[in-house]
């Protein structure tokens, strides 16, 4: 490696380790505050909550989603449901109309305009103090809303609470890999929550105090990641966001690499562009850890992955060039003998130990996330699926998202 790339390499590795250490120091500082409640959570007062379900071609899962809201342990007359059909071409509207008989459910039908427009239609018809969204491919745990509202009850200054999103019924290795990744995200989100640095309020059952929308305005298109933009807007206006790790929402995940790629490309593209839109928030004391930790962490992860992808491409290119030179010089030979295994030739450079360290941190993050959801520590084979799939595929959507950003091409919504 040349000196410049060596310096970049060590700086990025240092920053990557720094981020991981920061998460774990935060964890040890706040470990005792992490709750894992069993059974039903009671509230002193049940405040009115509206849950908006925006749907575009969701006939397969919509019914389960709405039923899960109806089955919430929350006081029934305090929940209002707004179903918004965003110009679906399947039977979504028909299925929604079946629920219209419930007194607390209202159905709206509109032309397709994107998720943010469906959510905004719901917000325009809001009658309660609290409001949230539940994506039509997700199912809320019966006690999730009680636990989320308990956070608002304990600290009325909180303006939004996000739940733990858990992958439901994984059927193939890719979905199992995503399940492990979601466990890790539960841990990371909780740590961001402790430092006041949550950067996304996801579609599955994040509950907001309506002041957020009354004072800061409704959802924006925001590169098709409206849930991230609203979180950035809240952070900019010092509206605290919390995470409730024992409020579970079960979500479906893409079953194929192609679908996963498309989903992640949208998220990553949106993330990069929102960071660019809010770049003035970087390193400003008034925005707290969000400014000094959350945004830089995202930037570091983008640059690290891009750098390592380029390094892998360079190393692979060098290997291919060597092989071509060999064939060009002495011809192709089938009589390759298997190399003798000699531990001497294992590269025991500093990077090996730093990589092992980062892997340990990632495994520990998934384990803690797993514990936050299930109540026990465990290493499952899903952890290894995560490494196999995400280490190999994620650089591609990241590179593509960067490429799209540079060439200003937004990915399709679906």
């Amino acid at each position: 490696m040349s000196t410049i790339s060596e310096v970049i390499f060590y700086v990025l590795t240092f920053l990557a380790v720094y981020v991981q250490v920061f998460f774990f120091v935060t964890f040890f500082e706040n470990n005792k505050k992490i709750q894992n409640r069993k059974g039903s959570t009671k509230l002193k007062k049940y405040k009115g909550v509206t849950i908006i379900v925006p749907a575009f071609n969701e006939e397969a899962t919509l019914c389960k989603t709405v039923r899960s809201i109806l089955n919430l342990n929350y006081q029934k007359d305090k929940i209002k449901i707004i179903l918004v059909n965003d110009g679906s071409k399947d039977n979504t509207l028909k299925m929604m109309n079946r629920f219209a008989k419930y007194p607390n459910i209202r159905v709206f039908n509109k032309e397709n305009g994107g998720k943010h427009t469906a959510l905004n239609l719901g917000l325009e018809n809001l009658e309660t103090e609290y409001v949230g969204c539940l994506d039509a491919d997700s199912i809320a745990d019966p006690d999730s809303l009680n636990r989320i509202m308990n956070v608002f009850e304990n600290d009325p200054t909180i303006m939004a609470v996000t739940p733990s999103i858990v992958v439901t019924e994984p059927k193939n290795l890719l979905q199992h890999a995503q399940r492990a990744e979601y466990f890790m995200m539960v841990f990371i989100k909780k740590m961001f929550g402790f430092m006041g640095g949550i950067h996304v309020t996801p579609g599955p059952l994040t509950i907001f105090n309506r002041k957020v929308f009354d004072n800061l305005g409704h959802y924006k298109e925001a590169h098709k990641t409206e849930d991230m933009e609203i979180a950035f807007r809240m952070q900019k206006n010092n509206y605290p966001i919390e995470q409730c790790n024992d409020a579970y929402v079960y979500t479906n995940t893409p079953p194929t690499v192609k679908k996963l790629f498309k989903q992640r490309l949208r998220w990553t593209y949106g993330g990069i562009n929102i960071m660019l839109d809010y770049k003035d928030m970087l390193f400003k004391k008034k925005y707290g850890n969000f400014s000094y930790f959350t945004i830089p962490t995202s930037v570091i992860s983008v640059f690290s992955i891009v750098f390592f992808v380029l390094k892998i491409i360079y190393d692979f290119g060098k290997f291919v060039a060597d092989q071509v030179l060999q064939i060009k010089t002495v011809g192709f030979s089938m009589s390759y003998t298997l190399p003798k295994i000699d531990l001497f030739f294992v590269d025991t450079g500093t990077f090996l130990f730093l990589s092992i360290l980062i892997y340990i941190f990632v495994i520990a993050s998934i384990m803690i996330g797993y514990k936050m959801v299930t109540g026990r520590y465990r290493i499952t084979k899903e952890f290894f699926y995560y490494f196999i799939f995400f280490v190999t595929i994620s650089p591609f959507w990241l590179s593509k998202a960067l490429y799209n950003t540079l060439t200003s091409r937004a990915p399709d919504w679906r």
Partner: protein
Amino acid sequence: MENNKIDWKKYVIVFFITSLLFILAWYLSNYFSEKKLSQIKTIQNDIALDILSSETQFSLLSELSCKNITAESSLSKELNEMGQKLEWGEDNIDDSSELLYLRRYYSLLQIKDYLLLKNISERCGNKYAFILYFYTDVDNCTECKRQGIVLSSLREKFPSLRVYSFDYSTNLSAIKSMLQIYKVEDTKLPALVLDDELLTGFRSIEELETKIEKSFALKDESKSKE
């Protein structure tokens, strides 16, 4: 909840912990590099001992028969192993002064092995062909890289071919003497010496194969004359 409170002390503590982890990784890396260097040194000592033993045997040749000289085949393997490990070390281990010293010692051992085997070969009529190969790492010598591939391939094809490779820029009087003897110039690298003939520039596998086979044939001829 105070959303915008920054705990600077934590940022500093995390910085120190990260630095400590880096130092630990660096220490572990150094520890294993030291182990590897000492492994090369052990091989080097073994080779030195084997050469000394063979030289002693050779001195006693008048009293011994040629079949008693047995060291050369294992010596070749050891030299080869040391060469590979040195090359890998030069690419992956940072301790350049130690490696430079080992590289010089390795070059010396190669010369000693070459002289000894040449003597044994002449005295006992063993069928060996010898190639002295001079290369350079300076200026990204692609031709040297290609020549190295050719020689590795030839070594696999002819087990009795002994290839001794020398970095032109190695600061060692014995190498400088060889460069003078064979009139090797730095502008004409890679250079090969086969049966005292100097071949400069890249030489293809076909050309060298012919020359090596000729060299073996000459030795056959001289052996049958004896």
